[in-house]
């Protein structure tokens, strides 16, 4: 289609061309004379083209050959470089680029994992420190507030403080987040009850222990009750525990129904 004008120029008579064909040639010729001139030019060029045999001298080839050898002999030293970055290959398909991308991928993932572990460690250590500091502050506050109370109350407070220590220790060891404010409230209420009466104080302690003796599960951490058993021995000394059935069998008297 694009070379249709050459086909049309092979015709002998301009007037034989259709209107559409003349339209194609309108930029080239508009009458028989111009048509003939173009036609003979094409014929002469076609004839001339066949006889042409121009070629550069052989010196050019020999020069280029030596240049080629020089370039590629020098390239032998950088054989690995040529292997990794061969010319005429799309950028992403060059082995060197692919290896570099792989390295970056591995390095990136390694760094990312390292960063995550590090940050987690830092966070847990910081939390433990903060908890410890808060508990220390609370201890001080509590000691200040009860310093002038009776020995019974002091005893009760000692129990509470040791309880708090147990909680704090277990929390720090297991990496568990324990709310300092909760501990604070509990200790404050215990201190207040200790100030009220001896019975009230002892009952409060028993309530706390009853709560603590239940298995407390926060996250994946179970509280260690070995330390709490020490408080049981302390509590025996207060003589406010309910006697066991073995000690006083008369406790069972009213529990049996007779028919």
């Amino acid at each position, binding site marked *: 289609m694009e070379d249709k004008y050459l086909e049309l120029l092979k015709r002998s008579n301009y007037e034989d061309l259709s209107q559409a064909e003349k339209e194609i040639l309108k930029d080239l010729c508009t009458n028989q004379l111009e048509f*003939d001139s173009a036609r003979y030019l094409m014929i002469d060029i076609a004839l*001339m083209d066949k006889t042409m045999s*121009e070629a550069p001298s052989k010196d050019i080839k020999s020069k280029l050959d030596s240049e080629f050898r020089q370039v590629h002999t020098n390239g032998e030293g950088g054989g690995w470089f040529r292997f990794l970055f061969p010319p005429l290959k799309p950028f992403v398909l060059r082995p060197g680029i692919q290896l570099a991308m792989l390295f970056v991928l591995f390095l990136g993932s390694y760094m990312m994992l390292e960063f995550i572990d590090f940050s987690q460690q830092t966070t847990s250590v910081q939390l433990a420190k903060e908890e410890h500091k808060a508990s220390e502050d609370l201890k001080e506050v509590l000691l200040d507030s009860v310093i002038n109370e009776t020995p019974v109350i002091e005893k009760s407070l000692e129990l509470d403080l040791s309880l708090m220590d147990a909680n704090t220790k277990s929390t720090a060891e297991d990496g568990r987040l324990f709310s300092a404010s909760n501990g604070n409230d509990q200790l404050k209420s215990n201190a207040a009850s200790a100030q009220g009466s001896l019975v009230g104080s002892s009952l409060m302690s028993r309530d706390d222990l009853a709560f603590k003796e239940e298995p407390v599960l926060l996250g994946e951490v179970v509280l260690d009750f070995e330390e709490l058993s020490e408080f049981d021995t302390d509590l025996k000394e207060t003589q406010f525990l309910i006697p066991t059935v073995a000690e006083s069998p008369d406790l069972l008297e009213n529990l049996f129904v007779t028919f």
Partner: protein
Amino acid sequence: MRVFKPQYGKLPDEELLVLMAKGDQRAFDEVYSRYSQPLFGYFMKLLARDKEKCEDMVHDLFAKIIRKPDYFDVKRSFRTWVYSVASNMCKNEYKRMAVRKNVKNDIEPAEFIQSSSDTLKTVHEKSFSDSLYHELNKMDEKHKSVFVLRHFDGFSMKEIAEALEINEGTVKSRLFYATKSLAGTLKQFNPIYQ
């Protein structure tokens, strides 16, 4: 990996270029045998038939291919690419010649003027080709390159457009202009006028 040596004569230009970039001498020989003559002819037609200069141009062009094979865009056809490089080299040469002409007004491109004056004197004794080259050299470079690529190197309109980085409509209009101009100036070879 190839077990057998490739048949270089049957390989496409682009594949030969890849082998050549790897240092395959035979691939280079094949590329040279395919393109040295047409490119030399192209330079001869565009550069006033100055043989030495045209040989230098061919040398420079192949040296570029040897030294910087990366310049070739593998997505393109090598044929159109190498002619586009040749065309740009001609443009640069025209600029250089124009500068030289301005500097040395008294000195004309001797060989060409000599041959053209001979042609003008003895128009019937000279061959059609001499007159054609003469007329081509008088022609504007942009029309000349389109005409040469189409009628001497056998490029299609699309290939010319790709090689010269212009659109096909422009190629067509330039080609018709060049044909009309040459047909007008070379009408003495038309049997009607003889």
